[in-house]
Every structure is written in C-alpha cells, then in structure tokens.
C-alpha cells in the first residue's frame, strides 16, 4: 500500500480499512453468525467449541473469550460486527462502548449525560486529552493504576 493513511494519528481510534478488514475477516464473520438465535444458543453453551469452528487466530479467540473489545479491534474486529457478541451477552451499545475506556458503566454513563467526551486534547496523538495513551485506563480503574505505579 502506498495510499496515504491520514487517519493513523487520531488517538484511541482505529479506522476499519481494507487492511483491518483482511486481518479481521474470520473474526467479523464469526460475529455475523450470532445474528441467528440458534447460533447464539450454541455459542453460549460452549464458547470455546463454537469459536473453534472458525478460522480465527488463537489471539482473536482469546480476545473474544475475554470480551476485550479493544483487543478485538486491534486484531481486525469492527465495532458493528463485535456488537453481535454484546447483543448475545445482553449488553447495550453503551455498555460495550464504555468497556473500551476502562470506566465503569456509571462513570461512562455520567460522562455522556454531562455532554460526552470533549474533543479538546483528543484530536491528534501527542496531545494531553483523556483518550490519549498515557491516560489509560480511564476512570477509577486508571486512578488506582496510576497510584499503584506511583
């Protein structure tokens, strides 16, 4: 590839382009299969066995089992596909989105009620906004992590 990817410097953001799509093909197609009620039942009955039916990497399978959506996205997953896992778990889009910030459900919901995350400091990698790498995880989880390392 040599077409410019001018979207790599947005912090905490992965653009689902052809390269991500290729990486995540089987992961995302597994997610699509959860749109059928009988597949959701089979997945819930034995997650590992169901995942082993798909040509996913072991890393992708572990990320799904751990419900680590950030990891799933790094491995080629797309949020609209991954949402089918959340739906199977009975989770809302807000719970799924919040889980990627490290915040608790309440913390994330509060942030949204108060107008959502500000774009200030979150436009370009290297600024100091709350979505930048140095401030992860967010919320109380991050505070304790920062205390622990201090």
């Amino acid at each position, binding site marked *: 590839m040599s077409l410019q990817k001018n979207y790599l410097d947005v912090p905490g*953001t992965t653009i689902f382009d052809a390269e991500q799509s290729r990486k995540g093909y089987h992961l995302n197609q597994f997610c699509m299969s959860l749109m059928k009620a009988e597949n959701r039942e089979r997945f819930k009955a034995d997650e590992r066995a169901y995942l082993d039916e798909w040509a996913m990497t072991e890393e992708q399978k572990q990320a799904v089992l751990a419900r680590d959506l950030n990891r799933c996205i790094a491995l080629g997953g797309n949020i609209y596909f991954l949402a089918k896992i959340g739906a199977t778990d009975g989770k809302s889009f807000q719970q799924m989105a919040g889980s990627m910030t490290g915040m608790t459900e309440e913390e994330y919901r509060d942030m949204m009620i108060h*107008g959502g995350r500000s774009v200030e400091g979150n436009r370009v990698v290297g600024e100091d906004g709350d979505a930048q790498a140095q401030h992860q995880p967010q919320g109380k989880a991050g505070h304790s992590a920062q205390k622990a390392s201090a």
Partner: protein
Amino acid sequence: MAKITASVYTSHVPAIGAALDLGKSNEPYWQPVFKGYEFGKQWIKENPPDVIFLVYNDHATAFSLDMIPTFAIGTAAEFQPADEGWGPRPVPTVIGHPELAAHIAQSVIQDDFDLTIVNKMDVDHGLTVPLSLMFGQPPADDFRWPCPVIPFAVNVVQYPVPSGKRCFNLGKAIRKAVESFDQPLNVQIWGTGGMSHQLQGPRAGLINKEFDNAFLDRLIADPEGQASVPHIDYVREAGSEGIELVMWLIARGAMDDIDPAPLVAVAPDATKSVPANAHPVSVKHRFYHVPASNTAVGHLILENT
C-alpha cells in the same frame, strides 16, 4: 411527474429504538429526545409522503464482509426488520416501491453512479429507527408503516467510504431520476445517521456540539461547501462513527435550491460565480440534543418552497 417535496434528517441511534420498544420513552432520560420529534410527527401527518427514499447505512446486518457495496438500492417488494443480535425490532415489515426504485436505479446508473441493485435484504435500526421517530409505533390493529420506503444503503463501515462530494452529486442525480418518473408521487428523501459519536476504543463517547451545530448551519446554508469537507475532519472532530453524516449530503443534494449540474473539483484560483437562488429551502424544524446513549442527536426538516 414525481417530485421531492421535502428532506428529513435524523440520527438513527439503536438505543432510541430499544427505548421505544421497551416502553421507556417517558423516562426522564429519553423525554427530551422524543420531545424533539413531536414537531416532525405532526408535520408528517400534515404532509404525508407517498414514498420515502431513505438513505441509511447497514451496520453489519444485511452486508457482511463477503460483499460491501458502496451504494445499494433496495428494489424488492418488502424488507424485513433484521435480527441484529437482540432479536428483530417489533416494527412492521417495510414495504418497498419496486417501480420507482428500479426507475431511480436505471436513471442514476446511466448518470455514472455504480449502484448495486438489491432484491433481498433485511433492514436494521439505521432504517427502522428514523421511521419510528417520525411515525411512532403503528397501532396493533393497523400494523404497518404509512407509506412505502425505498431503502438506500451507503457503505460507511469499511474505508474508503464515498466522499462528501460524491454523496452530494448522487443527491442531484436522484432528484433528476425522481422528476422523470411518470406518476404524480410526493416523495420525501431522508438522510440518517450521525451526529458526532464514537463507539470504539479509548476515545469512545466523543461528542462535539460545536462541530455538529456548524454542520447543521452549513448543511442548510452552504451544502456545497460542506460537501467538500474531507473524511478525516469528520473522524477527528466528530468521532469515528460521525462519518455517517456524509449520508445527509445525499438528501441535501436532492433539494430544489441546489444547482443540478455535477459538482466538480475546482482549481483554488478559479472564480466561482454563485447564482442568486430562485428556489430557497424552508427550514421547518431543527433540533439538537446530547446524549442518546453514546450519540448526539440531530434532526432537521427542510421543505422545498
């Protein structure tokens, strides 16, 4: 001759559908959202369309990674509400308008838009939530949407997605197509998706009121200028899913105040003469609210005069 009389713009947040379907619309969290649509519900009763041309995006529902059409037009007789993983929404089957849809497909393909024609697809919240917002839940004893709907799906999931300019020009071609249909139909065109939101990663929850309101201002007053804004600006300023807003440009491009000639790239030093606008649009309603779940909600109704 068919005619586009108005365009309607709205976010299509899935949680709004869930709130409606679970009877939560009177909760304090949701009340301000639904209040913003009261005008629209009354307005559309007084201005009932014969057909809605509904621009939306599929969210990994009808289209997996096996086939990703940039633009897909639904020419089928009907479309079922999809099971997105929570079970299908309890809303009526969407009835299509195969004749008009096929006519529009024929016309815009001949105008060099490379559509995919779709005769079988389920429709997800991107299409059904706007219908719910504008029409409410149809009564059990007459369980149907008030009019046929032509689904028009735009790829905004896998990059590259079509440019703002491409979407705006497509709107012009759709208007031309509608106006050459030989039945006297009152057609509305709806643009859905957006406003600012990001559903992924540590930046999830991003909202940008300034960007959203500037977008609304410019969509009304300078849509051609807005059409030239590159995707990276939407992503950076309005979140990775804020890119859905390009779909509003399709509906906007189909309005009467827009010069129907295709918008081409203009050299920076070219002098552009802006003709006095003989057909201004009328802003019937404008609404903005934060949040609905992860998303800023925007809503606009424009009428041709």
